[in-house]
């Protein structure tokens, strides 16, 4: 009887996959797929496009495995690849990021706008809809930072903007997202009410 037990350690799997072990490679791909899919989905929003993007990114991962230099973690490297693939897709579709106007640099009002009130009533499961309300540049920055777990220099390189701009976009994007979603206590009350 042939028995085989694969390690859960990504580094062990990675080493084996790079030696040509397909079982290890498959385990490695399974371990990163869902998070890569989340990055693609949050970047592209369309589920079909996100699935295609994830698949293309995973192919890029496999083809680039021999050149992976280990400077970042394997997971981060995969996230960067799927983010790059998603940005490529956005550029290919001509969906240029929405330019953020000067007025959006002003501190946000503490009074919820009518649109924000309606969004605040959304369940957390609808976060995709709320995320879509962010200016695209803010949304991309938040997704790359908080979903893909990329650091500021990596995001800056991907987006082709200065690091300070990335920090600004992430901060403002998070602030808008928090405001649109409401504070934690409000969310808890809302969930308890739903239950």
């Amino acid at each position: 009887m042939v028995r085989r037990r694969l390690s859960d350690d990504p580094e062990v799997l990675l080493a084996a996959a790079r030696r040509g072990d397909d079982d290890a490679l498959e385990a490695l791909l399974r371990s990163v797929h869902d998070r890569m899919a989340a990055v693609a989905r949050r970047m592209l929003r369309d589920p079909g496009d996100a699935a295609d993007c994830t698949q293309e990114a995973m192919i890029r991962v496999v083809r680039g495995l021999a050149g992976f230099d280990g400077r970042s973690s394997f997971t981060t490297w995969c996230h960067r690849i799927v983010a790059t693939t998603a940005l490529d897709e956005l550029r290919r579709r001509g969906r240029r990021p929405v330019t953020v106007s000067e007025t959006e640099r002003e501190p946000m009002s503490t009074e919820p706008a009518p649109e924000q009130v309606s969004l605040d009533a959304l369940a957390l499961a609808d976060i995709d809809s709320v995320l879509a309300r962010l200016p695209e540049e803010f949304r991309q920055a938040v997704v790359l930072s908080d979903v893909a777990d990329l650091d500021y220099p990596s995001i800056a390189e991907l987006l082709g903007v200065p690091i300070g701009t990335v920090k600004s976009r992430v901060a403002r994007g998070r602030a808008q997202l928090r405001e649109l979603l409401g504070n934690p206590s409000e969310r808890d009350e809302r969930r308890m009410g739903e239950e």
Partner: protein
Amino acid sequence: MDVDDPQFDDEHTATLPDDVLHALRSVEVDELARERAITAALAAAPQRRRINPTPLLGVAAAVLLVVAGAAIVLPRAGGDDAEIAIESAADTAASDEMQVEAAEAPEAELMVEERVASDEFSADEPAAIEAAPAMDDTGEADTQATVDDGAETPAELFDEATEALAGIQSGELKPPATDCVMMGGGPVVITVFRGVEVVLFADLANGSVTALATSDCGFVVDYQPAP
């Protein structure tokens, strides 16, 4: 006008609450899409080597070992040919009483140690070699192609690999440059086996040698001498 604030101080930038982060990172993944993506990615891998514990593929793995132990050289017209050859031999292997054991190597969880009872399958069995003659374009057996065309038996390959490995370990030789990779072993020499240029991988843990075609890194032969 884009926001460009190089002096932006993010020291006090609030992170998102855990439940929001969790929601952001959790998307409903279609099972079919996941399998499709993984399958496509695996298909894009430059070289494939799989040992699957499921019964059906386990038989295929057993066949692989039977073939290697019997020193049957698979036709090297392409990787597909090898797979077909393995499939066609599956029924025969299923009826064999040959024992195939795999144990996890203690020093590496991923290492699969395979032991073949090779008493019944001599590596130097000439009949086995003749069972897979090279074929020409017309489908006729080309018995002349095997003459003076590199090593003829896996045992000869093993000797070559051992000699090359000793040279590498003593510093006299350098490992050959190759794009082929093999789990558990490093490349030791590029040579010719029955007219096919191959790169030999010596697996110290298993005491075996594996030959991959340099043209496409396809599997040619795996050999482990009887203890």
